[in-house]
């Protein structure tokens, strides 16, 4: 029985060293189902029903992708737009994901030092996280502290192996992580009725 869903999104997995290794490490864990979005939907035609089914089965949802332009790759974003539908994962009756956890595994080309006010990325890395965090929160999910690998182009094999090992270990041990105890419960975000035309059936695929 798998209760961890890893959604991998890398538009050029054939050139990827880091994300490929991480995906393989995750796939090797028994309780994990990996869905490689670019392999599943090369034509960007997402099977929303299948994606929602996979989400329902999981307690921990992992987004694994490189950070491109400070955000997720386009197919991942399309996945968010179409799968996290109004009335299903948020809004009235939209409770399908309530109580689950969302964990971001990402890598950046820039080093950790580049994410500083005096460096070329100008902001600390955490400054780019609010959209992710709020997406999770709106759906009633806890946003777990992300696992980030900076300077992915220059990371050594040993370092990568260690990182992948840590990832696999944490997936295995979830939810038995020390930091989870300190994490607050998800705040409730009720979308006001006036925010969106209502009394309409759920948009299906």
């Amino acid at each position, binding site marked *: 029985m798998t209760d961890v869903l890893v959604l991998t999104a890398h538009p050029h997995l054939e050139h990827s060293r880091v994300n490929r290794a991480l995906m393989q490490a995750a796939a090797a864990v028994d309780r994990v189902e990996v869905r490689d979005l670019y392999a599943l939907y090369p034509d960007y035609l997402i099977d929303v029903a299948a994606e929602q089914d996979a989400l329902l089965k999981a307690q921990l949802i992992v987004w694994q992708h490189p950070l491109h332009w400070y955000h997720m790759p386009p197919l991942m974003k399309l996945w968010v737009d179409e799968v996290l539908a109004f009335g299903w994962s948020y809004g009235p009756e939209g409770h399908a994901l309530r109580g689950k956890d969302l964990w971001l595994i990402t890598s950046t080309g820039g080093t950790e030092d580049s994410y500083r006010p005096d460096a070329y990325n100008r902001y600390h890395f955490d400054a780019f996280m609010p959209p992710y965090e709020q997406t999770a929160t*709106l759906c009633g999910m806890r946003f777990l502290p992300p696992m980030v690998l900076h300077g992915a182009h220059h990371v050594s094999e040993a370092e990568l192996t260690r990182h992948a090992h840590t990832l696999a270990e944490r997936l295995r041990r979830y939810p038995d992580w020390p930091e989870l105890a300190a994490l607050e419960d998800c705040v409730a975000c009720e979308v*006001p009725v*006036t*925010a*969106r*035309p*209502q009394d*309409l*059936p759920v948009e299906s695929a």
Partner: protein
Amino acid sequence: MEHSSWLSGSLVYLAAAVLAVPLAKKLGLGSIIGYLVAGIVIGPRVLRLVTDPAEMLHFAEFGVVLMLFLVGLELEPRRLWSLRKPIFGWGSVQVFGSALLLMGVAAAAGVPWRIALVAALGLALSSTAIGLGVLAERNLMGTTGGQSLLSVALLQDIAAIPVLALLPLLAMSSAAHVDSNGWLGAAKALGVIAIIVLGGRLLLRPALRWIARSATPEIFTAAALLLVVATAALMQAVGLSMALGAFLAGVLLAESEYRHELETDIEPFKGLLLGLFFIAVGMSIDFGVVLAQPLLIAAIVFGFLALKAAVLWGMSRGMALPLPERPVFIILLAQGGEFGFVVFQAAAQAGVIDAPTSSLLVAAVALSMLLTPLLLVATDRWWAPLLAGQNRSTLQELNQPQHAPVIIAGFGRYGQIVGRLMFANGIDATVLDHDAEQVEGVRRFGWPAFYGDATRLDLLRTAGAEHARVLVVAIDDTAQSLKVVDIAREHFPQLTLVARARNVTHYYGLMDRGVKLIERETLDSALMSARSVLELLGYERHQARNLALRFRRHSVELLETMAQHRNDQGKLIAVAKQGRQQLEQMWARERDDAEARKKVRASLVSAQQPANQIDEQA
């Protein structure tokens, strides 16, 4: 009495045709030879069921008229105009070149010049009926050779007019008298052509429209026939070729909205009358004359065929006709023709040649027309394989072992697209095609294709099937495609098969054999067209794309579901209907939702409620 002779005549002709034509076709000889033989058998020499071939020939000539009308219908004025060079240039070369050569040889053989001239002019003409009939039967009308043949045949029809006008002159009657008649005739002829052209332009279409509005199909058919008969009668009244007139009328109607209707209406009449015409030609072969002077006849027939063929061979080179089209072009134009009959009969009447000479020449022409289909069959048997053999010898079958990771079997329209994407990515692919011409063609464009039959195990092995990773089965023929799949499954289990499905039955055949990657050959291009239609109807481009892609997924899933029920027609239809309904309902629901949402939004805006829009749904 009159009545019963009409009945018995019809009985004889129809029975002869119904018996002889299928038999000839079965023997691979073509329908024309069947008609000719039927004519010989029922004619005055063998069974004597019919005794007056000349009258029948006269009546059946109308088949040729109808045929030229139909040819004209296929030829818009603009295209006819573009053919003016082959018509007047090469057509004149054929008629005058052949006539000069024939006359020279005849004169050298001691034939008096006047007879030599008439014989040469009559024999230079060819049978439009057989020529165009063969082109239609073999579907060659659209080829370069076919168009060249048509051009020459048209000029012959035109040339027959001055040839016939020349005969009285040769009879050495009063020159002045004939001259004035000639001028008058020419003026009349020009007048009639002007009437046909102007009438065709101005009157025909409104008239046809008026008749069509009566919504009585048989009256439209009658009008179509009347049109051809009237044109022919007009032309004949001033001594012009009936066929030429019908052709002109056809050309004038080629662009009208009734073209197709006229074609379907006239077609059966043409077919039957043309058959009757060939029967009449068979009947008119006077075996008495032939048997009296067999050697002389043989010399005339083969002599004129050879001389005309020589001229035509030179022409076909000059026109740069494709090599495989040359034999048909030469053989069809080398034969004598129905205009020859007319010329010789008229010449005999005018006293230019005597009756025995006339029937000798008529017999020679008729025999050449009988020989033509036989020569064509012989060409198909001996020459065409020889040409193909030559191709094959320059085009060696694949014999060097290949090592590419991809093998493409079939390099036609489908395989080429697959191959080009591979080559463009620097991926090596071994291309096989069993059609030598196709291989030569794509090689000219620089594609590395091999000649070879992929349904042969040894050839697949040479192509590297034991080590390759992918075999693309892009063969046209479904049976051969399945055969290749069977061989590959059995002998090269490591190969992944990627197959082109010609139709659903083929798709299931491939599925049964365990092929996973099957594409229906028309699905994606049709969907692209459907997207264009949606866009033209005002759908957003991206929405059209989404609908097409979702439809595609639905269609593939449905096809796989239907596969389980494919032996149960009732169930199959039920599943297909159900699948369609599901999709339709789902999309109808989505449209309703979108519409409803739009309305609610509009009402919110009009109620001026400050909508606390959240980012995600902006």
